[in-house]
């Protein structure tokens, strides 16, 4: 199963909200919504792996780090994200990273 990691993104959240609305109006069942989300997980994982080909660098100061259940969570401060064309600065960013070597484990986001 693919990581459910990407459900907490703009794309994933908007999908979940939409599904919730349909459930509210009883147009779909929660079970069906879950199936849709699982399908979304597959699709986004595949798309990211295959359709994206760019690189980003970043630098900042590490505020906190956590490693639990093979999931790293970092909070960085004063970070600069650099792409070839791009520079984005943020005061604070949270990075949640699942193990990239083993996609068999189904880690919740």
């Amino acid at each position, binding site marked *: 199963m693919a990581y459910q990691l990407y459900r907490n*993104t703009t794309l994933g959240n908007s999908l979940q909200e939409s599904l919730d609305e*349909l459930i509210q109006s009883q147009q779909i069942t929660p079970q069906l919504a879950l199936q849709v989300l699982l399908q979304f997980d597959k699709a986004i994982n595949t798309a990211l792996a295959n359709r*994206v080909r760019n690189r980003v660098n970043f630098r900042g100061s590490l505020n906190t*780090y956590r490693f639990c259940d093979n999931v790293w969570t970092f909070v960085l401060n004063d970070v600069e994200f650099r792409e070839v064309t791009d520079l984005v600065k943020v005061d604070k960013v949270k990075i949640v*990273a699942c193990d990239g070597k083993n996609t068999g484990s189904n880690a919740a986001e």
Partner: protein
Amino acid sequence: MASSANSNIVPKLYRSVMEDVINEVRELFLDEGVDEQVLMELKTLWESKLMQSKAVDGFHTEEQQVLNAQQQQQAQQAQLTQAQSQTQQMLLPPAQQAPQQQVIVQDPKILQHMSATGMSAAATAATLALPTGVTPFQQLITPQGQILQVVRAANGAQYIIQPQQQMVLQQQVLPQMQAGGVQAPVIQQVLTPIQGGLSQQTGVIIQPQQIVLTGNKVQQNTQVMQAAAMAVQQAQGAAQIQAQAQAQPPQQQTQQQQASQQQQPPMMLQVDGAGDTSSEEDEEEEDEYDEDEDEDKEKDGGEDGQVEEEPLNSGDDVSDEEDQELFDTENVVVCQYDKIHRSKNKWKFHLKDGIMNLNGRDYVFSKAIGDAEW
């Protein structure tokens, strides 16, 4: 431009993911016996939320089509308004004045107006069915049996989708119903006089991202009404929920909201005031307690160390998180790690396949390398 590369990738990526998901779940929907309409609704909702988030410069192809349709309709409107209709007249009193008047339909009032206007087209009488309360989506059934769908665009512009001039059935107008995942609660109806029996032009500008064209044959009013009714019901149901769930101030601002708009924005996180949603009771108590303690301390002249301890302890809490909760965008990167390395307090990150939301915008990467000091 700084974000040109990424901002080109993201919309397309999201589009392709959406298409993939929708296509894949179509079977699931059918297996469950759920109508295709619901699937379309899901897609519409999904897209509209993406639009609202402004995290992506998304433009759905259908939306582009809509924009094209809008332009066409506007052009046609100008023509129609000049040649006023004879028998078929779909007029809103305010709309009669100008070719492209956007009358903000506010539920019952306008409906009454609609029904009161001299609709003498070949079709049957118009009935406006507006969902009570939230009415993102309105279905107008003209006296002539034409079903018009009032669509609320995302930008708060609501338009009645009226049939474009295409097919002419004797003295009937072909309504082109466009039921879209309407968002904006306010409906702006642009109606223009209908030319005698043939063409019905409406300055219907449809901005909702998706518009489902349901071709209706005016000849068979019952069929039309049935089909439209089904579509409308579903859309209404979803739209109602949509509207309820949507607390979009921008949309509301752009629309005249008066009586009809009984929507209330969904519960927003309110940190102060009467409708405070966060639990500040404890903090308030602490503050009061501290103040009391301070006063007592001053009065008593600081008898014991105990009196001094409370104020001291209260300052131990780090209020960082509270400030950050208020912050609109929590910048988040969701990804996978290839390698995380640390040397003393120097950390190196090797990440991959990530989606970032920074300063409200979305970015993606296939690889990311970072350094940080702890």
